[in-house]
């Protein structure tokens, strides 16, 4: 009984130690990557290529998801708001939900699944097939040549993707609210404009998406670089990227929301 408890505590301690050690490694890795930032921007084509893979290739999924989420918000929001006789607030509700929360968060979750996993898999595979080592042997630092451009490509793409998600969501809400349900188009927009604040809602939303971009891409490049060089290692790392990035985004969202919207 006491022994079992002791063993449980020991395992908990070991798990904590491992987690903290890993976080330490990840932090040192991030600093090393950031030190190679000049390469990512001096050799712009490298970073542009990564923006293409992380951003452009995520366009379709982001715009479509945003559209559907906005349309669902329109339907559900209308149902609830009309119970209180305030269906003219639909535009406000849809837009605030999107720019404050759903845009940055859902876009970041999709980004983790679409681009984050791809980044991890690509770096992991390069490690598994000795490509990173080969680069190092050719006197080319893989952190500068491969990791830093991928990191910045992801970080730059994310705010644009979140804004696109929100914008297509607002359009989806407009389609349902005005075109389908038949609310007055003027009321829809003017109520929204009266309630949405540029500084508080839109700027904060963009800040959120930028933070999520850093978190997701950081986890993705770290997991890729830290992959155990086997086929199972790559698949496990890819899964870890999606799980860890999603959890981290949601946790960070809570913290940011507390600081941004408390007392409003």
């Amino acid at each position, binding site marked *: 009984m006491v022994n079992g408890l002791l063993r449980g505590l020991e395992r908990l301690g070991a798990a904590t130690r491992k987690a903290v050690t890993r976080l330490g490694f990840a932090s040192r890795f991030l600093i090393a990557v950031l030190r190679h930032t000049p390469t990512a921007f001096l050799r712009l084509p490298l970073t542009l290529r990564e*923006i293409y893979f992380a951003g452009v290739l995520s366009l379709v999924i982001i715009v479509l998801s945003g559209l559907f989420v906005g349309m669902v918000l329109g339907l559900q929001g209308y149902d609830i708001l009309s119970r209180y006789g305030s269906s003219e607030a639909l535009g406000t509700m849809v837009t605030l939900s999107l720019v404050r929360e759903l845009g940055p968060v859902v876009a970041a979750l999709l980004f983790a699944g679409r681009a984050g996993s791809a980044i991890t898999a690509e770096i992991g595979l390069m490690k598994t097939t000795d490509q990173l080592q080969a680069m190092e042997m050719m006197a080319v630092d893989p952190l500068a040549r491969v990791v830093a451009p991928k990191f910045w490509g992801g970080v730059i793409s994310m705010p644009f993707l979140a*804004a696109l998600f929100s914008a*297509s969501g*607002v359009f989806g809400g407009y389609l349902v609210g005005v075109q389908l349900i038949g609310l007055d188009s003027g009321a829809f927009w003017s109520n929204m*404009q009266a309630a949405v*604040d*540029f500084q*508080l809602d839109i700027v904060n939303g963009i800040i959120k998406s930028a933070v999520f971009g850093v978190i997701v891409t950081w986890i993705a490049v770290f997991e890729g670089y830290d992959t155990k060089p086997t086929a199972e290692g790559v698949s496990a790392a890819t899964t870890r990227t999606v799980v860890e990035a999603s959890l981290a985004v949601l946790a960070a969202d809570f913290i940011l929301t507390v600081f941004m919207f408390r007392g409003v």
Partner: protein
Amino acid sequence: MSRATIDVWVGIFVAIGLGAMVFLSLKAGNLLTTSNAPGYRVEAAFDNIGGLKTRAPVKAAGVTVGRVESITLDPVTYQAVATLRIERQYEFTRDTIASILTSGLLGEVYVGLDVGGDEEMLADGHRISKTQSAIVLEKLVGQFMLNQASSLAGETK
């Protein structure tokens, strides 16, 4: 995938991403007309502000002319003091009445301005002297019940 193709696609991506941000800022956030318009501040003290929140609109004749910037409690009079930021192009007389109103039964709470006939105009730092507090539904209902009860009592006498 050649470098030129990638450049074009990234260009398109950044352009529509920026476009989305601009769309949100202008169409949804109404950036140009509200936040950046220069304005002046006046104060208004209310006995009870009800559900009024910062950033609530300030309207005159239904037109939004400004926003509530902050709400504090006066430690001496125990009145709520709302600071209203009003756009420069709108001027109001000194005897303007500020009242806290609700659009619809459960709609948004805003500050309504009713202009008086004074010669002098409100300027930065002035305090609106005539105010009308929020109508608190519970008090209203309570008063109504009390009236009903007393009239009933009168009938039975």
